């Protein structure tokens, strides 16, 4: 799998993501500066977490207009796989590559804690190492992770099975009204979604920060192992 991580000014989880990718591929991913416009030969493009452009406008709004985004759109049109985590998810929604938007967390505070995610479908390149209904732990670290979308979009996400992950209790129970299991207040507890062709995935929590027993677990590893298996050439 040939992977690249896009680095915008203010991206700050590119190193974490590189560690996770290196763990499953055995080599460092390519780092792509946001002025670059060549994404040829890549199987996976990752938009990592951080505060692109300081998030001084809406989170991800500036990065969505960065030069590299033109190439990313064309990469997506050609069926390329894209993973956006945290700020990367926000950028994908701002760029219109995924529907919906991320609002301030419901409690209006930055949230840095572990959450549990329930896998909603297991037949995508991002989720096939899990079974539907599996629950895994992931650190969250964001101020604006409160997913929202209009009713039509939510109906479509549900109807077409485009929700990848929902915030859940450790036993898998999903109760959107409960802050214990749905800390940022996301509508329908949505933590991660997929594009219609399931080749673009955006999620708020950080599977890349739980890929080593030393750091507290390997709950996030199946996502990366699954990508390598699905995108091997």
């Amino acid at each position: 799998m040939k992977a690249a991580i896009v680095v915008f000014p203010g991206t700050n989880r590119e190193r974490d993501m590189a560690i996770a990718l290196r763990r499953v591929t055995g080599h460092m991913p390519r780092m792509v500066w946001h002025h670059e416009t060549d994404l040829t030969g890549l199987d996976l493009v990752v938009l990592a977490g951080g505060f692109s452009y300081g998030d001084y406008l809406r989170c991800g709004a500036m990065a969505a207009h960065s030069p590299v985004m033109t190439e990313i759109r064309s990469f997506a049109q050609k069926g390329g796989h894209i993973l956006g985590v945290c700020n990367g998810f926000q950028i994908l929604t701002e760029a219109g590559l995924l529907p919906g938007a991320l609002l301030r967390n419901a409690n209006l505070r930055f949230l840095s804690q572990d959450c549990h995610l329930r896998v909603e479908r297991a037949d995508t390149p991002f989720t096939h190492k899990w079974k539907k209904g599996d629950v895994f732990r992931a650190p969250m670290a964001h101020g604006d992770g409160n997913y929202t979308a209009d009713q039509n979009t939510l109906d479509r996400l549900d109807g077409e099975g485009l929700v990848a992950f929902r915030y859940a209790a450790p036993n898998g129970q999903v109760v959107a009204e409960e802050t214990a299991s749905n800390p940022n207040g996301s509508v329908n507890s949505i933590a991660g979604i997929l594009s219609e062709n399931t080749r673009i995935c955006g999620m708020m929590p950080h599977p890349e920060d739980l890929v080593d027993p030393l750091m507290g677990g390997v709950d996030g590893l199946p996502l990366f192992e699954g990508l390598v298996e699905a995108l091997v050439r």
Partner: protein
Amino acid sequence: MKKTVDESLAREFGLTAEEYARVVSIMGRTPSLTELGVFSVMWSEHCSYKSSRKWLRTLPTTAPWVIHGPGENAGVVDIGQGYAAIFKMESHNHPSFIEPYQGAATGVGGILRDVFTMGARPIANLNALRFGNPETPRTRQIIDGVVRGIGGYGNCVGVPTVGGEINFHPAYDGNPLVNAMTVGLARKDRIFLSAAAGVGNPVVYVGSRTGRDGIHGATMSSAEFDENALAKRPTVQVGDPFIEKLLIEACLELMATDAIVAIQDMGAAGLTSSAVEMAGKGGVGIELDLDAVPQREPGMTAYEMMLSESQERMLMVLKPDRTDVARKIFEKWELDFAIIGHLTETGHIVVKHKGQVEADIPLDPLADQAPVYDRPASQPVVPEPLGPVHAPLSLDEMLIKLIGSPDLASRAWVWNQYDSTVGGQTVRRPGAADAAIVKIEDTSLALAITTDCTPRYCHADPKTGGAQAVAEAWRNITATGARPLAVTDNLNFGNPEKPEIMGQFIAAIEGMGDACRALDFPVVSGNVSLYNETRQPDGSTLAILPTPAIGGLGVLDDVEKAIGLGMQDGKAVVLIGETRGELGQSIWLREILGREDGPPPPVDLAAEKRNGDFVRKEILNGTVSACHDISDGGIMVAVAEMVMATGTGCELESPDSGIRPEAFWFGEDQARYLVCVENAADFCAKAAEAGVPARVIGHSGGNELILPSGVTISAARLVSAHEAFFPALMTR
């Protein structure tokens, strides 16, 4: 706007009549406004350490692993495998009272720059915070702003905030303490220093533009607060963590080349102190052309530019043929880059603006003739012994009350607003071990980092308190299995012109020095914050508790051997160290009996070393599966914290010690640890051989804490009592 320079203006700038006379004698004439500004900030307490320098010199600062001690931007120690850890702690107390969010945020930004200016990538932030009475709305407002500020800055720059401490006391009502610590990592042969060299070499300004913010911030931080403190808001700087993140990346990229001769951040006293210190250390002169300084607003004067404390700025001396390489890097990161001067052989700092010489000051006397005071000090009063005290409640009632009290309650509400995992190297997050543990990527190494101080001990007996702060930091590092290496100190005290405050300061340093020497734990960097006092409406002043905060750093050669404090199932719980039941100045005494008296627990440094070295050795041997140092709240609170960390319970045995139960369980005797071990008999025999007191006090298992009386408290109930305080306080 045109001000006449005279003694009265000098006084307004914080200089005494004698100091102003010395300025005039050095200059041989009346100084210009800009020159007076330069002298006043360089000679402020904040920059000159004029009250503290004599005593700071008594601290031990060397060890075979110390690469750079005090005098550089931060301390540097060798951690093995070719790497160095670079670290420092610094206060932002005064700004954080005036404007809590920006005060705390720029405190984080400033300490980050002190570390990355030496070539290190920042890998961990910690912060030691002291707030006033939590019952007052102003305290809650300050907590909210400070926590948001630390998070807002640290989260954005992508440096994990992995630990710290919080205390409450009414003595901090008008003067909270915000002490921020950063630890960075560099190759030990790639460390950058600030001494300028090479006459003719260009002086380069990078980072944010200069505005009018923070003018005279250093002077403001060198005076006590009066009722008009909040009117000083314009002296507080405004931070931009996004620019800081770019500055970190750009500087590290430049540092990978050979372009830099010297580099220093513009911190307190901004362009003035960075230019003066770089040239002074290098024994050269420096000429600045302020027309070239990137400016945020039009019409700034030389005085304003030299004294601005605008954030996220660095000053560098580059090799002349490498300026283009450097310029390209800063252009890539979209940061300002300007050649604003050059080094000279005059030995003067010359500041030009709009064709005029605005300042021309000889550097040697500016540094050498800076005032140093041996201020009168009175011997601290030795506290009366604590008479007999009796528990008014049952053990379980007292435990529940203590673990929910402001100083012991869970800090999760605070930590959960700080990104503690970014970087992907956080082995133990806040609360999981006595020290935060951060791995060094691509090595087997990890750093153990902690901040400690018990201000109520320091207030009762500054010398013992100073020693205790160092010992507790050493113990917290030891309890993870790491080898303690060195400390940074942040000495927060009241007005040094008062003999009793100066007495506290001197005694605390004496205690710290004793402990640092006994534990082979030298001071490699630090910061002094004096004048932490607030004038009351009745004219009296309220000083903070003396608070010499210690930031300790240790190393684990093999990160796999690190352990946490969470109770492990099916083990014997062994108490290490001697217990006499010291309740003087204890949390128990304050929270249960409402008293703050008696002497603090004595610190026996030989016992600290012996017990700690034994514990560390056993952790590294693999015989210990959990370890927690015993501090505030004594054995009982330590056991409860271990139980809460994992949810695994513990059945405690009757002490049979000849000590009253409340003194045994809640006494705060030092040099003690609790450990989980498999084979207690073997372990205690080894301890006896090493001359280390050890006894089994309980066995782990189940999910309840079972007291010797048979009363049981579920782990869940402990957790809910522990976690209630902060959310309840902050949602009032």
